[in-house]
């Protein structure tokens, strides 16, 4: 019998716990995964773990698992990014664990890189695969010389509209330019309906507009960032929407594809949604809408300025920092996102919005759509939208903050308390300050 009483054992445990707690009293810092030597491909068969919120992604991976035996991929479902998925991945990585592959919105990729959670894929030969992707997609996951993710799915913006009400009842056309949008929204508003609805707290909506207009809000230069939110393309968008808000010709009570939106769209009181291509699947659930809806290009700025479209929403697959098999992960992800077999499976099982591969939109997307008035809208509309993107756009490593600031600002603009033109300028100042507080080198554009 030792003299160790339970009490002293307990006290010891408590003290040890407290000591380890105090030692852990700093948020975990990143490992230098991108400065250490690269990990060579394994000789033995490997199993990759993959955390994603796509449904049935395992079925896609099973196809890959089936035709070779070197790499097996196992998928674990996680909640969507802001619904806890990001927190889960970042916590796992900070604790030294986590899966090999994770699911991250393209716009949040630099944020993950900043948290030290990502492996730079350019170090594993992914740059050679670059030309297999649509430039507008691969461009979204690059910062300076690094490629931080494999683009998987994204949303070139287009106009989805209720053809029956807009064209047949009101005798209007879907607006081809923003000037026409202004007129159309006015006429529809006089008819007691709303051309589209907007959730002003959604900061990503104006970001898609300025992207299309030709702005580059965040420019990496050397080791720092230039934040430029008040250039001509941005101001063009701000002045335009200030006018729309002042005239109150669109509904700003709820966003597109939300529960109240479906209710209003089913009654023909909301006629359109200018959203990413993934909205098609959502709009197809508008009750009684089959055969009545159609798709048109995003309205453009006349006189040849800006681009055909912007991007709204996207997904990518990242290799997390603690992965022991980055080379195999890159091999699998390249197959999944560029081979027709992988893309078709992702469309069928996981319902991806738009393929990021060059020249392959997926077999299912080549068919005319019954819901959208028999239109082959993917080839007719979305393809040109994907090709006409602003390739200078780079996501900053704090898009969540930015979207909140812009969303809060636009909420004020919709209520008439601040103009968007002022709000963009204020936000630029605020964002630069936040980036500096984060320890990044940032300055406002001159």
């Amino acid at each position, binding site marked *: 019998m030792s003299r160790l009483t339970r*009490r002293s054992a307990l006290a010891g445990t408590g003290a040890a*716990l407290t000591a380890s707690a105090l030692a852990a009293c700093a*948020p975990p810092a990143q490992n230098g995964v991108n400065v250490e030597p690269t990990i060579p491909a394994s000789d033995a068969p490997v199993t990759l773990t993959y955390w994603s919120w796509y449904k049935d992604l395992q079925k896609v991976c099973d196809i890959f698992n089936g035709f070779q035996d070197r790499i097996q991929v196992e998928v674990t479902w996680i909640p969507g990014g802001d619904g806890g998925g990001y927190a889960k991945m970042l916590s796992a990585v900070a604790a030294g664990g986590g899966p090999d592959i994770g699911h991250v919105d393209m716009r949040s990729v630099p944020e993950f890189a900043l948290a030290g959670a990502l492996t730079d894929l350019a170090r594993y030969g992914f740059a050679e695969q670059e030309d297999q992707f649509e430039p507008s997609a691969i461009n979204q996951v690059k910062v300076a010389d690094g490629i931080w993710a494999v683009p998987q799915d994204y949303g070139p913006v287009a106009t989805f509209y209720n053809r029956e009400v807009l064209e047949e009842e009101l005798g209007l056309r879907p607006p081809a330019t923003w000037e026409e949008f202004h007129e159309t929204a006015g006429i529809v508003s006089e008819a007691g309906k709303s051309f589209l609805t907007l959730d002003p707290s959604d900061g990503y909506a104006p970001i898609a507009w300025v992207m299309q207009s030709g702005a580059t809000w965040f420019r990496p230069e050397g080791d720092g960032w230039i934040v430029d939110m008040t250039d001509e393309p941005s101001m063009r968008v701000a002045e335009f929407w200030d006018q729309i808000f002042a005239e109150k010709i669109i509904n700003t009570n709820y966003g597109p594809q*939300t529960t*109240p939106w479906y*209710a*209003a769209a089913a009654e023909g009181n909301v006629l359109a949604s200018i959203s990413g291509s993934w909205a098609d699947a959502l709009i197809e659930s508008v009750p009684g809408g089959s055969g009545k809806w159609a798709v048109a290009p995003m309205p453009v700025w006349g006189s040849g300025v800006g681009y055909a479209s912007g991007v709204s929403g996207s997904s990518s697959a990242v290799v997390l920092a603690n992965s022991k098999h980055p080379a195999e992960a890159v091999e699998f992800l390249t197959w999944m996102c560029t081979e027709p077999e992988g893309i078709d499976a992702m469309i069928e099982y996981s319902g991806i919005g738009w393929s990021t591969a060059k020249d392959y939109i997926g077999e299912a997307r080549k068919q005319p759509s019954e819901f959208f008035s028999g239109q082959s809208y993917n080839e007719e509309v979305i393809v040109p939208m994907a090709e006409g993107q602003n390739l200078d756009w780079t996501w900053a490593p704090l898009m*969540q903050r930015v979207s909140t600031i812009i969303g809060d600002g636009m909420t004020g603009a919709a209520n008439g308390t601040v103009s968007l033109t002022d709000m963009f300028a204020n936000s630029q100042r605020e964002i630069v300050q936040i980036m500096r507080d984060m320890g990044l080198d940032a300055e406002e554009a001159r």
Partner: protein
Amino acid sequence: MRSRSAPWVLLAPFLVVFIGTMIVPIVMAIGYSFSSVERSGLLGEGGLTNSFAGFENYVKALSNANFVESIGRMVLFGIVQVTVMIVAATVLALLLETANAKWPGFFRATYFLPYGIPGVIATILWSFLYIPGLSPIVDVLGWVGLEIDFLGPNMVLWSIANIVTWTYTGYNMLIIIAQLKAIPGELYEAAKIDGASGFKVAMAIQLPLIRPALMLTIIFSIIGTLQLFAEPRLMQTMSAGITSEYTPNMSAYAFAFQYNDVGMAAAQAVIIAVSAFLLSAVALGISSWTEKRR
């Protein structure tokens, strides 16, 4: 020896879990709130260092207009919602405890029922009664010419207050009833002999004697108000009026899990906890001061 170590042995399982899941996280959160991260390079690839930041996070949290606004919003919410709820719970409790109440057991259970529905489900339920085009309430109000947008920027706070009131009134009512049941019958008899009316009995006997229960429910409600999270977070998708830093807890959540700024989130969490403590202390102070004045 044995008798002295027995309580510790019996407490051990609780203590281990309590220290591991309560004390350690609290100590760590306080530690995090005093640290900040320094980065270098475009994406921090040049390295990351943790440094002691002193009160920098606290200063930043309190100079963040959204966060301060969210606290103000919750104080306003609390003053209105807690008052309405406690008054309603007290009235219901007194009515159910009168001698001529019919079916008290049935009504007690009915009023308590909403508390058994998780907040998330309750919010989804109510949101269907708020959304124009789906809601029968909005339709009926529309027929009589009342156009109310329950999800509008100025209205949505009170729509949330309604959900919270609906959920917790019955629960608070039960606490008050428990205290009412502890009032000795002799007091009622004495009041009857003195010829006191039912109203007089409520004002002179019941209300003074259920003060501790009222205090308890008020303090619980104040703490609950400051921690409001699930209801607004769910309704964010339906209402343009709810920003991502609408309540203090949503703000802390946003900083921790969306902006990846753990130090700031920890500082906000500490501020929320201290505010709850201070508000509870103020409520207790007011209570004992009025007690002394009598």
